[in-house]
């Protein structure tokens, strides 16, 4: 068999050296951007006890088990008594999920349909269509996967979002530009140059078609796409990763270190997260009814994420009862999405391979296991954990 090994080692791999250099550049960049965890203590903290390592004892104790045992520590035990399959959603309507296979729609009864091999996707305001991106194309498809129109671009469209207001528009990023196209695929035009790689966010529940986007210099602008009027701009903020609109119509920006809410004139009014301690990282945030926010706060030292609900949008000035912890679990909780009725919060939990559904009031927890396989049928379970895009669609505003 040494001959066979030598032969396998002699098989020429095309551009082997070039591949190694390209890969090293990518790996080196990822390493430079990572947030190193503080050194772990020898003794496990109580919180770490939650991080039950999914080790099969017999495998771990045998010599081969010791050899392959290192990777097993990546998995954590999620919520006990999790349902084995995503057989239903706790709230009606539809969930949009992207996996390596493409974009999927999950209906309330748990049925799933692969819309196609799309990289990103977003619902139209009433969920009648999905706008999706793949390669050089922006595509509008029906929930059954039938394409309605397609727009080809020289660059690669990403972060497409459908406006919630009448006169429907779609914004998307292409390289460092922000563009707008009609909901029927017509009238594609440039809206802004030198934008940051952050998804634009439409002002919800308004009679104006207003979108907020981040510029490359860190300024977040809110503009009326019909008139081109700038409604406000924020001061420069480094590392904006997400833009949100609060139910009260204010813009909030999420960086890894803080969540800032701005007044309607663009001036900061407060940081609902307060000052994070060293080693803490914000993973995601979502707005919830009654002008509140939920954010995911990852503590690298403890290796756990806490979901916090807060009504203190103005920096410590809480309207009612202040911040409260909804849930704490080992690993990362991310991709927060609120159900259309505003009662359930969904979080993706990659290390546990679970979707976590939390009812906000009265509190209740539901979890679903083996999520990777749900969106990679026939796979080995090693595909990347799927991303939750949206839970469609919030009720129309009362006029």
């Amino acid at each position, binding site marked *: *068999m040494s001959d*066979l*090994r030598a*032969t*396998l*080692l*002699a*098989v*020429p*791999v*095309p*551009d*082997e050296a070039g*591949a*190694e250099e*390209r*890969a*090293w550049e*990518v*790996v*080196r960049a*990822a*390493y*430079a951007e*990572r947030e*190193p*965890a503080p050194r*772990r203590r020898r003794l496990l903290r109580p919180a770490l006890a939650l991080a039950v390592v999914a080790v099969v004892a017999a*495998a771990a104790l*045998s010599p*081969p*088990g010791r*050899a*392959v*045992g*290192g*990777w097993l*520590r*990546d998995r954590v035990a999620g919520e006990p008594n999790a349902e084995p399959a995503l057989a239903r959603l706790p709230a009606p309507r539809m969930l949009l999920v992207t996996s*390596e*296979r493409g974009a999927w729609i999950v209906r309330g009864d748990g049925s799933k349909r692969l819309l196609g*091999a799309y990289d990103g996707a977003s619902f139209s305001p009433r969920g009648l269509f999905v706008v999706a991106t793949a390669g050089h194309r922006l595509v509008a498809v029906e929930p059954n996967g039938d394409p309605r129109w397609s727009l080809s671009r020289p660059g690669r469209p990403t972060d497409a979002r459908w406006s919630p207001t009448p006169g429907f528009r779609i914004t998307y990023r292409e390289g460092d530009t922000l563009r707008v196209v009609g909901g029927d695929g017509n009238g594609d035009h440039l809206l802004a140059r030198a934008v940051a790689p952050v998804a634009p966010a439409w002002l919800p529940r308004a009679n104006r078609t207003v979108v907020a986007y981040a510029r490359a210099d860190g300024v977040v602008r809110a503009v009326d796409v019909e008139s081109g009027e700038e409604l406000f701009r924020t001061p420069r903020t480094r590392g904006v990763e997400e833009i949100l609109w609060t139910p009260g119509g204010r813009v909030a920006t999420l960086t890894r270190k803080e969540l800032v809410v701005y007044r309607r004139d663009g001036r900061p009014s407060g940081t609902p997260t307060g000052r994070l301690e060293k080693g803490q990282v914000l993973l995601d945030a979502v707005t919830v009814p009654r002008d509140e926010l939920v954010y995911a706060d990852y503590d*690298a030292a403890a*290796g756990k994420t806490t979901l916090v609900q807060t009504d203190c949008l103005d920096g410590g000035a809480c309207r009612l009862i202040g911040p409260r912890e909804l849930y704490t679990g080992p690993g990362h909780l991310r991709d927060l999405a609120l159900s259309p009725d505003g009662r359930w919060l969904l979080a993706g939990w990659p290390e546990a391979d679970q979707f976590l559904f939390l009812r906000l009031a009265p509190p209740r927890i539901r979890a679903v296991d083996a999520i990777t396989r749900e969106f*990679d049928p*026939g*796979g*080995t*379970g*090693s*595909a990347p954990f799927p991303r939750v895009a949206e839970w469609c669609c919030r009720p129309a505003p009362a006029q």
Partner: protein
Amino acid sequence: MADAGRDERAWVRGAQAGSASALEALFRAHWPRAHRAAYLVLHDAAAAEDVAQEGFLAAVRALDRFEPGRPFGPWLHRIVVNRAIDVARARALRREVGAEQALETTAAPEPGASPGPPSESVMLALASLSPDHRAVVVLRYLLDYSPGEIARMLGLPRGTVNSRLRRGLDALQRGVERETDE
């Protein structure tokens, strides 16, 4: 071997402590085999590069949780080979005609064509196997894992690993014999 193990532990510890040069040493030591394993399963250089790169990115993300006393290779190889299997399956489902044609071209040389080097006939023989079978062969004969280790890495019963190895070896033997006959 012991020195290599000591080096690797030092590199892992260094990378955890923030040393890019330690990470590069770890990368340089493990990239060639991980990349080659992905290529032998996928038979597509671009896809193999992506898969091997994903494996190292996963390693960077998990670096803080990695125990320096554990061997890095099995951890990386498990990710890379499983991902290669998934990618190969997904491509088959999507009927990526280009890739299928490439495999068919490799598997069916022109009549009368002169036989290539041994590695070429091995590639032809591998091409006649499914990605799942190729993965088992690669783990056993390129990366030197035991059938028990392969079973755990791929989440398969040991009997399945053994039968895939037998079938893989038969195909490789036929390929080599064909070349000898010619």
